[in-house]
């Protein structure tokens, strides 16, 4: 077990990253590029350490918006997926619209959300929900559709109702696909929250970034980016953990 996880640490990825960082540091020093334009990694690291308490304080707001939005997205997506499974007619009507809605860039409707919901946490939550909803809904619907038709038939011969088939068969069968979609949504969630904060807020990493950019503090912007990446990574790991606890049978099967 321990050996496995040691093997899974992506050594080559870390090595490539180290090389790139060294190159970046050297390039900035040799060319004498001003720090407000492109700070060297060492300077970013110093800024990160100096502003860490402030960054963590702002992270709380962003993370709250991200998690709330993600939760909302999951709830709406699950309900909609089940409704579509219950009624093929609703599915036929709703699913194409769902796909079409994804052609609207959500960032462009964000100003409208500010008009409708003001400058509080609400517009951020809505942006996150809109961004995260689609991958979760699609993965759930597709997962349910991919369920083994013969198993459905077996349940029908047992006299199962449509609802029983959904509950006993389609939902569990769709969970691996659902979690795959949730992982994608999880990485979108922080991004959605930060975009929401750019449009107007008094707290949050998005606000921190806007202020730092206005003051030409590029090192602080990079520090915020690092924090956003780390939190997104944590969200991803958290979802992976929940998946392993929820569908252990799937991971056991895959290991074979």
């Amino acid at each position, binding site marked *: 077990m321990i050996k496995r996880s040691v093997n899974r640490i992506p050594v080559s990825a870390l090595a490539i990253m180290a090389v790139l960082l060294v190159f970046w540091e050297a390039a900035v020093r040799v060319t004498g590029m001003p720090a407000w334009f492109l700070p060297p990694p060492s300077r970013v690291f110093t800024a990160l350490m100096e502003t860490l308490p402030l960054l963590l304080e702002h992270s709380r707001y962003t993370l709250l918006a991200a998690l709330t939005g993600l939760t909302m997205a999951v709830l709406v997506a699950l309900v909609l997926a089940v409704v579509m499974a219950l009624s093929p007619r609703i599915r036929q009507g709703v699913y194409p619209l769902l796909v079409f809605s994804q052609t609207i860039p959500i960032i462009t409707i964000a100003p409208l959300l500010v008009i409708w919901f003001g400058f509080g946490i609400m517009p951020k939550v809505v942006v996150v929900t809109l961004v995260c909803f689609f991958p979760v809904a699609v993965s759930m619907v597709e997962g349910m559709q991919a369920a*083994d038709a*013969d*198993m459905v*038939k*077996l*349940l*029908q*011969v*047992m*006299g*199962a109702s449509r609802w*029983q088939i959904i509950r*006993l*068969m389609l939902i*569990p*069968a769709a*969970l691996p696909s659902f979690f795959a979609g949730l992982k994608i949504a999880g990485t979108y969630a922080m991004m959605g929250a930060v975009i929401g904060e750019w449009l107007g807020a008094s707290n949050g990493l998005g606000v921190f970034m806007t202020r730092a950019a206005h003051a030409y503090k590029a090192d602080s912007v990079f520090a915020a980016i690092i924090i956003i990446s780390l939190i997104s990574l944590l969200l991803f790991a958290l979802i992976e953990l929940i998946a392993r606890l929820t*569908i252990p*049978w*799937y991971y*056991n*099967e895959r290991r*074979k």
Partner: protein
Amino acid sequence: MTTRDSINKFKSDPVVLLEGVAKSFVVGGRSLPILDEVSVRVGQGEFVSLIGPSGCGKSTLFNIICGLERPDRGRVILAGNENLQAVDAVSYMPQKDLLLPWRTVLDNVILAREVAGDGRDKARREAKELMPQFGLAGFENSYPAQLSGGMRQRAALMRTMLAHRNILLLDEPFGALDAITRTKMQQWLLEVWNSFRRAVFFITHDIEEAIFLSDRIYVLTPRSARVTLHLNVNLPRPRRYECVTAPDFLALKKQIMQALTPV
């Protein structure tokens, strides 16, 4: 004892009665006949097999008995009651075990009881007692992926048994197993059948399997299917696998082979 008993019984009281069942599908604008006047009976507690070349419409026939499809013509009467729904009379076991990978063996075998709305705890208790007979003792909490092919089929059969239906439809249940496992499973199936005494309607394209297991055998023609041969298997029970070399057995085998490959 069983052969004669069950034949007497089926004459008075068939649990599966198909009369002149016909079915065709429309493919590319043309009507493609699948079943052409198939008539079959299975008596109470009887073991009846259906042999046919692959693609002859066996699955369609099963779907009709299960109530998943309606025949174009003919009648299906289950347990002597024309109004009885298939879901209340029939339990079905397909070639693929179709165990739900997210459920333990114990929770898989009680699936039909759960669908019927019976209490989970009661069904689990009942299932636990039967685990040894199905060779699954100690595997109650294993997941299907952890079982061998033979064990998975035993679990699937146990799930079929626990549905508490009078009629078991087994659709090539051992078709995917290797020859040795298959032989063991056939012997074991006879033991289980002997102790539960349900009517079994068994689809196969393995002639020896059909003779070894059955009281009676129907042989179907290629599509569109009709019964080309119907014969009694008067081999004494309980049967051991050695009987596959007995002269009576071989005579039956020859008869069926001739029916399947008419000159």
